[in-house]
């Protein structure tokens, strides 16, 4: 394989990995607090629709981004209300959120199908982008990709180096002990879930304003679900998440690469690749259950009910 193709693949991996990275970062923060929100797909779709609508009607991409994050947070708010206040089953509630999100985004976005906006354009960073190989790889992206680099750094710092992160991890490990120490468990979890919603909204906006600047029903095509397995893949560590997202990025463009080098298979069979890759990755990472147990937040998906204690 020649260098240029290799570079192109890596650039494409970053572009396809970015929405996965964003939504998985949000879910990671959410899961660190002990809440499993399976509604990522629904939140992403709402983000994608709201982001596109905002940018389309106002002509302002920033407004689109803002709307996307608000939409994601509103969706996350419904989830939080049900699972944190009414102690509903987190798995079922997350599924409901996905069904609701895909229905609502399709309903509200029906009139936008077929419209286009001028999406985010790559901004080459002077000097840095001229570095051979690394330059085009890292320093010639749109603002959302740069933003995702910054968000990774911020999330890593908050989770591992701050008091807020310590509180978050404590709540995710044992909410009852945290409560006994006077930590407001429900409040912490609300913040984590809403943050997750904002990230998912942002990831959705990346889809509809940068990756393919348009709106289409179910345009996220299971990325919300893939991101969930990405969090498991990363063993709930921010750093691994970034590596994982780009690896998944490569896997999901593999069919384009294969077509590119003249491999002819039915496009429908090639389109299965990302999903097959996800299953393969899950098999590899799940085969050591002890390691998994150690990495996962200990109270993940277990409801906290102060009324019962």
């Amino acid at each position: 394989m020649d260098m240029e193709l290799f570079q192109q693949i890596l650039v494409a991996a970053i572009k396809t990995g970015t929405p996965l990275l964003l939504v998985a970062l949000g879910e990671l923060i959410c899961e660190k607090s002990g809440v499993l929100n399976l509604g990522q797909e629904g939140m992403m779709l709402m983000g994608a629709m709201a982001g596109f609508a905002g940018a389309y009607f106002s002509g302002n991409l920033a407004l689109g981004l803002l709307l996307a994050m608000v939409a994601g947070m509103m969706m996350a708010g419904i989830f939080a209300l049900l699972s944190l206040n009414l102690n509903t089953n987190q798995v079922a509630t997350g599924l409901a959120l996905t069904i609701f999100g895909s229905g609502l985004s399709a309903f509200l976005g029906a009139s936008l199908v077929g419209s286009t906006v001028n999406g985010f354009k790559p901004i080459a960073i002077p000097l840095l982008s001229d570095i051979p190989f690394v330059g085009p790889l890292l320093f010639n992206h749109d603002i959302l990709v740069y933003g995702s680099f910054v968000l990774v750094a911020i999330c890593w710092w908050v989770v591992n180096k701050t008091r807020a992160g310590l509180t978050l991890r404590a709540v995710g490990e044992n909410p009852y002990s945290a409560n006994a120490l006077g930590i407001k468990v429900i409040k912490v979890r609300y913040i984590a879930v809403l943050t997750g919603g904002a990230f998912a909204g942002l990831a959705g906006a990346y889809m509809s304003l940068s990756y393919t600047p348009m709106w289409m029903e179910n345009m996220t095509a299971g990325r919300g679900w893939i991101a969930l397995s990405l969090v498991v893949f990363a063993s709930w560590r921010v750093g691994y998440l970034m590596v994982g997202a780009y690896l998944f990025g490569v896997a999901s463009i593999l069919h384009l690469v294969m077509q590119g080098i003249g491999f002819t298979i039915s496009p429908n069979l090639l389109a299965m690749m990302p999903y097959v890759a996800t299953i393969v990755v899950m098999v590899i990472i799940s085969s050591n259950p002890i390691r998994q147990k150690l990495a996962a937040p200990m109270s993940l998906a277990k409801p906290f009910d102060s009324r019962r204690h």
Partner: protein
Amino acid sequence: MLKTQARLESSKLMSWLSPLIAIVLTMLVSSIMFLALGINPTTAFKVFIIGPLSDSYNLGELMVKTTPLLLCATGLALCYKANIWNIGAEGQLLVGALVGSYFALQANDDSGYGWLAITLLAGAVAGMFWAAIPTLLHQLFHTNLILTTIMLNYIGLYLLLWGVHGPLIDPEGFGFPESAIFADALLLPTIMEDGRASISIVLAVVFAIGSGIILYRTLPGFQLRVFGSDQPAARYAGYSSKFIIWSVMLSAGALAGFAGVAEVTGPIGQLIPQVSPGYGYAAIIVAYLGRLNPFGIIFAAFFMGTLYMGSDLAQIELGMPTAITGLFQGILLFFLLACDFLIHYKIIWQPNKSNSQTAPVSTKQGAA
């Protein structure tokens, strides 16, 4: 002031009332939505609920929509009762339809009902096989069932698209992604003069009743419920988790696969890309609406079938996008989950007694 209080025992009454409350609340929210869209809610509900029941053709179509929902939801309920999160009914249905179609297309005009039976069996076995993949991975590698079944839904969809665009395409179909129309002997007998409802609805009801009896009247069903409600207790009692997991997953796969093959050999009569408008996902809601009880699910499936029919009619008569079905489904599931709160908690009215108690005390702080 309203307060919530944990109940000592779960309320049996509320466990039956909560789906009804959820339906009422969903209708209230949708009324507001209709008003916002400038549609009179009474007109809308007439179209949505009375419409599907209005004449015998519509009634037949209602059964057509209900059948796959009932089949898939019965299987899912068995899984969810065992606390096994199988989200894969959609993929199992699609693969059942695909493999069933392959068998159906091998038949010719001389084939008898024996070939139809083989086709149906093949569809069910294909669904079982599709459910066996995540089960095997779960047993061997502890992979997360939710995520693998979801991924297999996408893979199943692309497999079906590949089949209908490729090997199973009608050679005389001018390149349209459709199979040839199945031979007459390969079509399920219908149960009504006009309309497409076939005997599969009867079979679906029989399967649901059978599942209900197994679940609530037999020892394996009891073991399944114990396993789902409390895994350590099942392990303590020595119930085989392997047997339970495999049984529910394979049953669910077979039912969903059968639903798929019954679609192509029933109302559709050929393989097309749009075999399912998301029946496998809607079945999750049906299972919950029926309280994971196969008897309740029979009613829930008819209700959800009505909703599907209704949105078809609403598209024609009120010009509403069909996406509205998904919206209703999501809202309904939210309310269902929320109303379950009432099973475990009661809401009581407390006059502001405790407030007035603490208020003067807290003002005294530091004064004594």
